[in-house]
């Protein structure tokens, strides 16, 4: 193990200097640390922060790989190079090398920039504040490329990562102290700072913006726009000919990692099985979304909203379709369950999750300018999570006080 002993020597050499945390971090990241706890209680458990983070990344890998294939597939469909629609998950025209190459070409730079910039800032803060580098960015760095449009310019992503990590996390004291989910802070920053790159019907398929410009310039380019189902529904244009199987397996335009509800579901089961993601939050958030969807369907079927209304398209969407389209599934499984920013108490998790689902669908329907309601809903509930916990704990205290009084009286 040449690298390991080299690293060890370097660590000894820089011990006690400013650069020590940086070398320690590289060592911890690549190998098992060889330091032993010296005092206090020794609890033997393997699930340290690094393992937790790696588990979430493993759950994300299927979405990432699928996202690459899908990026290429959507690109080729839009160019008219693929004429046979992929039928179902195992469609022959989907899993091709051509699709993967386009996907790799577009997605890998996003991943590299996200990790490079984010980890650089983590290292910088560790050196300045003289603490060990925390592994908190490992998951954020993987989430970020999965939730942005494929053509996001790399410098924008870098600016947003700097903002998200510094303002969203480091000012509060680093990993574990943040109020807002850093990945969503990064996305929200991009969304409000550069709206033309983050929403609309041209950003979700690679090259769609350029093709639209070419068409506007009078060139004869054969192309269909890469509108998402959500965007189309918000304009009362229906689901663009996709059936629910397409939505479930994710062969639709959208952010890189969010489209395949099927693979997200597998990731969710893996997280629940590994006891890392909270099933309470996932389940209650799905319930919340279904309840809101049912309310809207009820409003439509009772005739209060007619087809002339601008809300008709999304309100009349069958309530369970809301789970399949947009980023709802991805946000619920991978971001609402972030243990730092979600509620901590079990009862609190039910309330928190329910409201995330409920508000996501509400924002999605009522504000066509922000079709991706799940981002805003999770950020909003992140802010309220400590409040929910406070009242759950107070309620418990009151209940016990009453019991105590009844006993002693």
């Amino acid at each position, binding site marked *: 193990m040449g690298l390991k002993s080299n690293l060890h020597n370097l660590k000894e050499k820089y011990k006690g200097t400013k650069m020590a945390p940086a070398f320690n971090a590289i060592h911890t990241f690549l190998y098992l640390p060889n330091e032993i706890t010296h005092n206090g209680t020794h609890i033997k458990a393997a699930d340290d922060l690094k393992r937790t983070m790696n588990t979430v990344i493993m759950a994300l890998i299927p979405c990432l790989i699928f996202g690459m294939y899908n990026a290429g597939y959507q690109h080729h469909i839009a160019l008219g190079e693929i004429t046979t629609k992929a039928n179902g998950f195992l469609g022959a025209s989907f899993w091709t090398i051509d699709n993967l190459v386009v996907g790799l070409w577009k997605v890998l730079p996003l991943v590299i920039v996200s990790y490079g910039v984010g980890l650089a800032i983590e290292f910088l803060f560790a050196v300045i504040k003289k603490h060990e580098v925390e592994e908190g960015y490992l998951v954020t760095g993987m989430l970020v490329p999965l939730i942005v449009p494929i053509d996001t*310019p790399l*410098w*924008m992503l870098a*600016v947003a990562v700097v903002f998200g990590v510094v303002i969203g996390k480091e*000012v509060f004291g680093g990993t574990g102290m943040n109020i807002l989910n850093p990945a969503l802070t990064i996305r929200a920053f991009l969304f*409000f*700072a550069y709206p033309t790159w983050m929403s609309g019907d041209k950003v979700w398929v690679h090259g769609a913006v350029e093709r639209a410009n070419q068409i506007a310039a009078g060139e004869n380019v054969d192309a269909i726009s890469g509108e998402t189902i959500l965007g189309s529904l918000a304009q009362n244009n229906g689901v663009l000919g996709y059936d629910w199987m397409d939505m479930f397996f994710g062969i639709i335009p959208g952010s890189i990692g969010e489209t395949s509800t099927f693979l997200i579901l597998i990731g969710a089961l893996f997280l629940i099985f590994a006891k890392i993601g909270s099933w309470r939050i996932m389940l209650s958030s799905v319930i919340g979304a279904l309840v809101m969807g049912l309310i809207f369907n009820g409003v439509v079927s009772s005739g209060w909203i007619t087809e002339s209304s601008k809300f008709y398209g999304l309100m009349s969407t069958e309530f369970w379709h809301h789970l399949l389209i947009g980023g709802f599934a991805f946000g619920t499984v991978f971001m609402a369950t972030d243990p730092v920013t979600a509620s901590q108490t079990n009862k609190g998790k039910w309330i928190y999750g329910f409201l995330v689902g409920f508000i996501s669908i509400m924002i999605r329907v009522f504000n066509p300018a922000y079709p991706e309601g799940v981002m805003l809903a999770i950020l909003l509930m992140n802010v309220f999570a400590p409040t929910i916990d406070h009242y759950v704990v107070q309620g418990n205290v009151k209940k016990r006080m009453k019991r105590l009084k009844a006993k002693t009286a």
Partner: protein
Amino acid sequence: MGLLSKKDSKLILDPLADNNPITIQVLGICSALAITAELEASIVMSISVLFVLGVGNVIISLIRNIIPSKIRIIVQLIVVAALVIIVDLVLKAFAYELSKTLSVFVGLIITNCIIMGRFEAFALGNGPWRSFLDGIGNAFGYGVILIIVGFFRELLGSGTLLGFPILGDPIEKTGLYAFGYENNGFMLLSPMALIVVGLIIWVQRSKNKALIED
């Protein structure tokens, strides 16, 4: 400073940094958030507050011994209101477009906490000269922050300064825009002003540890 004694010059210099009304006392935040999307508006707002606070402090200081203490708040309000109306009318007469941008916030100088705060805390207990210095000192401290925030918000949000294009033309794609740069729309929204003020506070307190509370 030959002109001012050491004690007097402290009145002006203190609010500029170590006792800044915005970053240390956290007063007058509303206007700092609302009108700093453009540098020009920030400068005009700073000058307006400079006038109101400087003159107001002198007036209050001159009449401080004849104001019955029970109605002193009302008297102070009348003085500010009169001065603000002067500013408002001057702006409407000579800079109409700008006064439309500033809109209600000129009127709201009346409720700017810094002004009532200085009247109460300083002008009621000190002579006119010292009150004047204190007034313009605090107004400068307020203005400095406003101008810093306005500078960054206009530069990064619109790519201009005082209305002149600095970074090139976003439509013709010249200057920085030719390389794919885009204006940051978030800078034009009020939350970003809060974050910029927060960053200034962060930098200031990490430079001077004595300012950190508890």
